[in-house]
């Protein structure tokens, strides 16, 4: 037990010395050598088949190239992996942990970073990190206002879009107040996922962004002093909207896919999504009618980045870093962005790529349901996680009886 523990301790110590606020150095060849033969337990939410297939493909590729195997530990909720690391810490297993790599962002990242449950910093030292868009896509370096500091590595982006059935809606609402007007004319035809689900609270955050007097305060933690005043207009809007929602706002789909099922069943006419390719991907896999299209609010929508992180006690840190680096490769990112594969917009800055790599992105298939970058409009930064936590708690206070 002592030897591996000591090894990872030394490993961490080497990093701590070598890493000076973002300027990390990894002996990449040594990492590749150590990684060979490792099996990386990648804990990732598995509710999306396309993502599962992508992860399986990544596993085949890194095994072929670097001799690193991936075991996709399928989660219903990312917090299950956080729970596991906490349980391991509770049991005193500070090395040889069972979670090597986890799909993480936002509140889970904040919780793990605060509790010292993450290994790092490692991300900025990955060879392919040089292609990452760190200027236009702020969410790649600031995760829900929390500085990433190299404790997680980006792999896919997300931005709020709305998917609607063009057969039923001619002109979709383009702002938060317009959504309320639209619902007055079409009661019971829109909903949002449960507020305990990230997509549900994001629906409210998006409204908060547009309705708050000064959205800049959302980049600071919410306080007892300002929360009520800042959110008051949002709650007033929601009080008016809630009875006009599907099931009179008394029931909500548990998560995004459950909401998509409602759209497919014709129970609702539009839905919120965090994936700009959702409409195109879902048409391709027969999960939505081919009449669905995508729109965003004209003042912009919240966007964020999904990361992979490595727990402090991971047994296969080298293999995990090799996988994290592979995910950043331009060719990998192009596969990820193909809506026939996974359909997630890239975290890379296309301007930083070689012409050959850029062509991979230009050659990706198009679809009428797929928005262009221009159509996606402005990307708004995620508010501090405390807003989300408080909104969810307040929502329960106000509407749970």
């Amino acid at each position: 037990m002592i030897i591996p523990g000591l090894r990872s301790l030394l490993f961490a110590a080497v990093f701590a010395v070598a890493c000076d606020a973002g300027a990390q150095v990894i002996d990449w060849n040594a990492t590749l050598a150590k990684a060979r033969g490792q099996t990386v337990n990648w804990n990732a939410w598995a509710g999306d088949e396309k993502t599962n297939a992508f992860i399986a493909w990544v596993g085949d590729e890194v095994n072929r190239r670097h001799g690193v195997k991936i075991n996709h530990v399928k989660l219903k909720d990312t917090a299950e992996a956080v729970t596991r690391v906490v349980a391991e810490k509770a049991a005193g297993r500070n090395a040889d942990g069972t979670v090597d790599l986890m799909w993480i962002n936002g509140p889970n990242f904040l919780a793990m970073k605060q509790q010292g449950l993450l290994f790092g910093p490692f991300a900025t030292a990955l060879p392919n990190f040089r292609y990452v868009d760190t200027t236009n896509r702020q969410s790649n370096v600031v995760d829900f206002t929390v500085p990433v500091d190299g404790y997680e590595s980006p792999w896919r982006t997300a931005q709020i879009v709305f998917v609607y059935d063009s057969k039923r809606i001619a002109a979709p609402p383009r702002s938060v107040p317009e959504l309320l007007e639209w619902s007055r004319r079409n009661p019971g035809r829109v909903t949002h996922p449960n507020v305990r689900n990230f997509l549900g609270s994001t629906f409210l955050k998006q409204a908060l962004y547009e309705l708050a007097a000064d959205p800049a305060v959302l980049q600071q933690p919410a306080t007892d002093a300002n929360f009520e005043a800042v959110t008051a207009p949002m709650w007033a809007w929601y009080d008016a909207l809630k009875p006009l929602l599907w099931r009179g706002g008394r029931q909500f789909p548990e998560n995004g896919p459950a909401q998509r099922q409602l759209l497919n069943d014709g129970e609702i006419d539009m839905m919120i999504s965090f994936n700009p390719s959702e409409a195109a991907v879902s048409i391709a896999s027969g999960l939505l009618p081919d009449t669905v299209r995508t729109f965003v609010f004209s003042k912009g929508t919240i966007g964020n980045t999904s990361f992979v992180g490595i727990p402090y006690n991971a047994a296969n840190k080298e293999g995990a870093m090799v996988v994290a680096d592979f995910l950043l490769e331009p060719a990998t990112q192009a596969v990820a962005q193909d809506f026939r594969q996974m359909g997630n917009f890239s975290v890379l800055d296309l301007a930083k790529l070689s012409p050959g790599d850029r062509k991979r992105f230009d050659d990706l298939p198009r679809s009428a349901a797929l928005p262009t970058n221009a159509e996606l409009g402005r990307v708004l930064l995620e508010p501090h996680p405390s807003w989300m936590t408080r909104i969810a708690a307040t929502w329960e206070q106000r509407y749970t009886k």
Partner: protein
Amino acid sequence: MDDAHRRDMGAAIHEIGGGRWLGAAPPLTVAAFVVPIAAGLAGTLLPAFGYLPAIGSARLSLEPWRLLAEYPGLRSSIVLTLTTGVAATLLSLLLAVGFCAQVSGRPWAQRASAALAPLLATPHSALAIGVAFLLLPSGWIVRALSPWLTGWTLPPDLATVGDPRGIALVVGLVLKEVPYLILMISGALNQVPSAPQIAVARALGYNRIAAWLKVVLPQVYPQIRLPVYAVLAFSLSVVDVALILGPGNPPTLAVLAVRWFSDADIHFYFPAAAAATLLGGLVLVAIAAWHGGEQLVAAWGRRWLAVGRRDGLANRLTAGAGAAAIASFAFAALALAGLALWSFATQWRFPAAWPDGLDLANWARRLDGLARPAAITLAIGAAATIIALILVIACLENESRRPRPVGRAALWLLYLPLLVPQVAFLFGAQVLLIRFSADGLFASVVWAHLIFVLPYLFLSLADPWRALDPRYARTAACLGASPARVFFRVKLPLLLKPVLLACAVAFAVSAGQYLPTLFAGNGRVATLTTEAVTLAAGADRRVIGAYALVQALLPMLVWLAAVLVPWFLYARRRGIGRA
């Protein structure tokens, strides 16, 4: 042969045979599940009182309870949990009794019960998803009637699933628990000479149903009391069915606890542990109240018997309940048929009553992903069943070699894993496994399954085993056969059919486990059930349908094997294998 003689002979056999290790079987069996449950309960109770050093809280406090009390929906959640749990148990018992009262004594009764096997084998979550598709306003029933009858071109905005009162949840539970209770009643009926008693009662002018209710039921109920309590405990603490069919705001207490256990903010552990503890307390209170209710019903029942009316409301009620039971089987079959159809559908949108097209594309895509979890499910189920079988047979054999009535206490212990809510001890058990670096191992998952497989196997096998005429074994012993020879050449062949059926029940239990697999396997051991529940989050009914079918099919095949093997082996010895 009097008791003293029998004891002597038992002792003698005990000395001759390899009986010494047999004596270790009962404590070993109890230890296999009492230890993890006790450790798990401690691991939940401590955080419920604020003690979880891993996240920096090493002091006992009542803070978790304050947080729990602050949850605005707590009252509604408790009321919902109690009403759905008690209603599901009452209805299931009523329907099961009604069904048994009607079919008992009929020549096809045995086959009717056997036909329920597929339903017993289907995991709760799979059936719940099928039920949801039937009941939804955009579900199959409304589709079949729209728009030609209802005029609906869009699904109506009605809360038929996830309704705040939990009616859909009760329906989903009843569909699964009725067959289980019928199986338990059939087992108990083997201990009651019901046929001659009913004949006497009918000669006195009672009709078939009244005779069964007044003569047989009072003898059967004490034997199914524990299974009824298990149904009550399960209905109060079920997670997967409540997630699919129950309301979400507020949800039942068990769902609330699981939701908090997996919250992004790890400090939600504390109220989660408190909620799990509260749920454990509610289960205890509910069982105590049910027990009290039994006394009242018994007191009233004695008077009812004494009055001696030959007809009455009870007869009609029971007949109605029997019919409702049969309707519930049809409904469950329809739910499974809907899922099966989905797994072959290309597209199937509201209000089409039938999919746009059927093909094998979905299955072709799934096959790869299905093979491995299916193999793992089979391996875990086989291992857990075999270990449980050896322990249970050792216990029963030990009991029959030194005859001493099994105390009620022992039976209660056996039911412990079924009475304590899973959420109340599985997190604690996970910490225990990690401490011994045993998490994520195949063996640990087998052990976790064993906790739930053992009691079911014991309960299925104990009655037929104890009912075997002891004179067979004595005759063989008198002819000079050693206890081992008696066991292998006489008892086992005679009891082969119940042994195999008990194994089939045990395998089905193993195949359906979700939380234990997740916690003990650390998410690294993927069975059909964990895959199906994870994919259920993706809400593609074609995928869910395929997994649910395979999930149900595997235990059904085991069941079929359990029925066919004795049939082939004993094709030419009709008397045997009927035990």
